[in-house]
């Protein structure tokens, strides 16, 4: 299925486009800067470690220098040389011996890093420490490397052994580093004995341990031949439980190398002392060197995260700011769609494209509003004209018939009736001519129909009676005019006229709920259903009798009050007919009053 990228809104489009770009850029920067920092930290660590190791090497050299000085002083000691090589007198020898041993004692007392101090000039010519210890009779001193090497070296020189087990004293087998120098009686050309100091590892260990290479880091020392001289885990290495990468150290031409991977990666830093030929090696775990690494990583991660959040928020806010004018505009347009022609509030919209758009829209809305107002006015006009047209359809035949009746009555000498009828006609005419207003009060409307019925009653003396029942409360309510008269007329011509005997027309007006009911009832011949159906049809209007007609009344009622109001008929053949007009109970009706006040 293909995913078609369709943004729901411009804003989400912006978010989806920009957020990944920003975030990936951030991640990229994070990665790069972290790697770069890591590299820097490693370089710094290498340099730092290097300095520490060099310092350690230097310190060890100084330490050995000091020991050499002691050795040089002691090996030139006159008493020692005389005791070993020349003095024969036993008493004198004893004196020399105690003076030398006193010196040995002094040295040993001041230094706790010396295991043995002594001089050897032959299998039975040995002075060592305080001179009380039993010597190991099986120790083959004269063939030991430290002895022979020192014997062969020049005056004032010293020889350093590697780590070795010193077995010169009975029942003692300590591991030591032996520093030995030749003894030569003044004036003789050959070395005849050796002065030696056995160093325990105190000072060396101290120097190595002083260097802080992290919790797991350590320092070890190789001698000239590449044997381990000192290692913090020497016993483990000697026991074969641990291995040290001695070969790698010896093969390494650089100042440092890395070994291992991940958390076990170690940094070997190598310095060689030109004096002793010893190699001091610092081993540090890169994971510890880069201990700050996790801190750095944490900080980088936090900063990146923070930036992510800030930027996400920023993008969200900015996109909202950019799209907000559009949304405002959109909302306004929606209101317009619903028909509320408001001006879009452009004050909140910044002055750019969107405002231009808004202005154009406002102009358009304005125009539409004008057009609509005009439209409404025109419609109103049209309706008025129509009403007028309908109203003006009144009368000519009725007028002619009435005048005709008056003429007849005059001829018959019925003066009183003539007066009465003429007055009624005059009132009728005055009402219909004098006003072009649409509304009557119910009083006016009923007066009007009363005048009409009076005239008709005089014309059809024996045939027509009428009665009126108007609720006093609604006399002043407004109603469109010429509603009752056409209905009454209709009742006469279609109901009463065909009835044998007298007919009765009853005019009623009363409120019903919020409406007003006007009712014209006759007891004429009634209507069939077909007649009822056709009664509102325009072409059925009988122009002979009355131009206005029922259709006219119905049309005006609907036009004025709306479709839910109007006229309806209730009728049955022989049962009479009731025309019922329902209009809303409107307040006022002042127009009629006004007319009265003229």
């Amino acid at each position, binding site marked *: 299925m293909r995913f078609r990228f369709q943004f729901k809104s411009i804003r989400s489009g912006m978010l989806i486009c920009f957020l990944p770009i920003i975030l990936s850029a951030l991640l990229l920067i994070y990665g790069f800067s972290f790697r770069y920092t890591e590299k820097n930290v490693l370089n710094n660590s290498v340099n730092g470690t290097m300095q520490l190791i060099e310092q350690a090497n230097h310190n060890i050299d100084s330490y050995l220098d000091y020991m050499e000085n002691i050795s040089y002083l002691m090996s030139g000691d006159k008493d020692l040389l005389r005791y070993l090589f020349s003095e024969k007198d036993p008493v004198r020898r004893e004196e020399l011996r105690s003076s030398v041993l006193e010196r040995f004692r002094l040295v040993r007392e001041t230094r706790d890093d010396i295991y043995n101090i002594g001089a050897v000039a032959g299998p039975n010519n040995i002075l060592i420490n305080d001179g009380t210890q039993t010597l190991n009779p099986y120790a083959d001193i004269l063939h030991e490397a430290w002895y022979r090497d020192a014997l062969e070296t020049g005056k004032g020189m010293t020889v350093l052994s590697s780590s070795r*087990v010193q077995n010169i004293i009975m029942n003692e087998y300590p591991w030591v580093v032996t520093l030995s120098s030749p003894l030569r009686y003044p004036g003789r050309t050959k070395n005849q004995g050796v002065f030696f100091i056995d160093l325990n590892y105190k000072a060396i260990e*101290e120097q190595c341990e002083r260097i802080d290479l992290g919790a797991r880091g350590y320092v070890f020392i190789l001698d000239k031949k590449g044997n381990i001289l000192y290692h913090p885990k020497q016993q483990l290495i000697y*026991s074969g439980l641990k291995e040290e990468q001695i070969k790698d150290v010896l093969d390494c031409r650089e100042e440092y190398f890395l070994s291992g991977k991940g958390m076990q990666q170690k940094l070997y830093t190598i310095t060689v002392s030109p004096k002793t030929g010893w190699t001091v090696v610092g081993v540090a775990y890169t994971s510890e060197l880069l201990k700050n690494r996790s801190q750095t990583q*944490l900080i980088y*991660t936090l900063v990146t995260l923070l930036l992510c959040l800030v930027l996400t928020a920023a993008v969200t806010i900015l996109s909202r700011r950019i799209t907000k004018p559009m949304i405002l505009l959109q909302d306004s347009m929606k209101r317009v769609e619903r028909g509320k022609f408001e001006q879009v509030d452009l004050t909140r919209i910044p002055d750019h494209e969107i405002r231009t758009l808004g202005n154009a829209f406002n102009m358009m809305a304005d125009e539409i509003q004008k057009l609509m107002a005009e439209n409404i006015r025109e419609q109103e006009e049209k309706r008025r004209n129509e009403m007028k047209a309908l109203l003006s359809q009144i009368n000519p035949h009725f007028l002619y018939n009435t005048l005709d009746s008056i003429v007849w009555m005059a001829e018959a000498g019925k003066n009183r009736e003539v007066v009465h009828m003429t007055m009624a006609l005059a009132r009728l005419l005055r009402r219909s001519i004098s006003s072009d207003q649409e509304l009557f009060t119910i009083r006016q409307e009923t007066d009007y129909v009363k005048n009409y019925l009076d005239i008709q009653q005089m014309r059809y003396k024996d045939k027509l009676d009428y009665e009126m029942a108007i609720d006093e409360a609604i006399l002043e309510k407004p109603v469109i005019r010429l509603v009752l008269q056409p209905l009454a007329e209709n009742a006469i011509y279609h109901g009463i006229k065909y009835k044998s005997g007298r007919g009765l027309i009853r005019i009623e007006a009363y409120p019903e709920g919020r409406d007003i009911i006007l009712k014209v009832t006759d007891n004429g011949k009634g209507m069939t259903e077909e007649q009822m159906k056709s009664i509102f049809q325009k072409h059925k209007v009988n122009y002979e009798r009355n131009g206005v007609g029922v259709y006219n009344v119905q049309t005006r009622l609907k036009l004025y009050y709306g479709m839910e109001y109007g006229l309806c008929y209730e009728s049955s053949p022989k049962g009479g007919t009731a025309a019922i007009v329902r209009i809303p109970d409107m307040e006022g009706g002042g127009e009629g009053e006004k007319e009265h006040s003229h």
Partner: protein
Amino acid sequence: MKVKKSTVIKLGTYLLLLGAVFGICYQLYETTGEKAGPKIILIPKKIDESNEFWSSVIAGAQVASKEYNVELSLMAPETETDVEGQNRLILEAAGKRPDAILVSPCSYEETTSSIRQAVNQGVKVVLIDSNINESLSIPLVATDNVEIGRRLGEYMKELLPENPKIGLVGHVKGSSTAIDREKGIREGLGKEAEAIKEVVFCDSIYQEAYDVTLRLLERHPDINIIAGFNEYSSLGAASAVRDLGLKGKVKTFGIDNSVSQIQLLESGVYQALAIQNPFNMGYLGIEEAVKRIEGEKTDLFLNSGSKLVTVGDIFTEENEKLLFPFLGSRATKKEEINSQ
């Protein structure tokens, strides 16, 4: 396919945040310090400052404990023959609910029940140096005692004089090490094992060893080869030979490498010493226990190694390292120890 874009954005952001939070948590977890290490109780056959074998075992265990961040404590009976005492200690140790117990059983047979009890209580047990007579599927870190015996036996065979008569001085009768070492010596001697006149025991007491050797030589004046099975028996036997002035006449062999023994080797009383590696035994014992605690499957037997050192090669670079413990600055002058 229609997905609400805002949902996508929210989801994406949420995932991103979640990832970041996990990242940070992981970082924090990595940077937090090591957790407290396991508790292990070491029960050797005895604690005796003057006994270099057990001192080395303990030293090895201590070094390994430091390496593996183990909280190590020691419990030990008064003597190697105090089987009852050790059994009590084993049960007491198990009652402390440690992560593991390292035991060197005093008896091949009588220590079994207490170890079985401890194992049944759910305590991980690692045997060092000596075995028990029942396989409880617990690991043993020890010298291959048959092998060390064989090394000695083979060298004895090389130096065998005319008409050989051999006396063996064992340490504790019935102990697994004694049984295996004797077996190894006999294997090494091969046919010449017939020359073994008598095997005597000394209960791992130096004086006893000295005395039984004297009596042995009294009973069999024609004995011209004597071999000891451990530090005490070897030293007692060699001392007796030296004191009787039989150095050179009675060829003496031994196991272990106490300073006194080395002195006797240097002086030529011993022809050779077969040395164990007690430091390694202690170290590997702890290592094994840690592995077991971590649920790692290991072999049931771990050989801590052995070597034969003869008069001529004591101070070779290789043997020096095995014979003499490197103590660094902890090595102090003899007189200072004595004055303490």
